[in-house]
């Protein structure tokens, strides 16, 4: 089963405990979407994935990992 995982929770922690609200504001989405992403219940579009990565100053693959089993 293919799956997209992310390190958003970890990266927020590494960025001085950036709040979900702050990340949502930087990435241009709602806090509920960040919650869903952290819980692995939503896979973002490429565009949103790039915006989230940019909010952390990281590359796309540092934030999102595609797992193929």
């Amino acid at each position, binding site marked *: 089963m293919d799956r997209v995982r992310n390190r958003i929770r970890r990266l927020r922690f590494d960025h001085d405990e950036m709040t979900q609200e702050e990340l949502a504001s930087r990435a241009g989405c709602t806090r*509920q979407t960040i919650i869903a992403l952290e819980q692995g219940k939503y896979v973002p579009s490429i565009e949103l994935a790039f915006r989230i990565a940019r909010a952390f100053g990281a590359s796309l693959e540092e934030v999102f990992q595609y797992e193929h089993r």
Partner: protein
Amino acid sequence: MAPLQKRALYSFVIGLVLTIALIIVLVLQGDITAFGEHLRLRLFMYTVLIGVPLIYLILVNLTLRKPSQVDERDRLIIERSARAQWLAVIFSLVIWTIVLTEIYRDQGQVPIVFINLIFMSALIISPLAQSLGILVGYWNMNRNG
């Protein structure tokens, strides 16, 4: 709760209360086909008819115009909710067709007042079903992803 989810909930609850009130009034009236003869009943019906889509428009549609409150996930849920909307309208038409056919089969004709009622019910059901579809969409996405 997401802003859109909250507003869809308000829209659904208010719309449902108005619709149930209308159904109760029509049932208490006894003869539904006589609704056109009573001014108060017609006014109440028009209030519900205008009220339900208007509440939906104010609560849900206006939220969509605020980019800070809606993102791609919300838009995906709205797109999916359209399916619930047309399914509900189609089913309501099917129910009307079956019920009216069975009730008026012997008479061979259906009172013309039902054209109004069918049209009004479709207009009320459509925004109600979309609000419900949005709520189910959030519930489903939070559960299954």
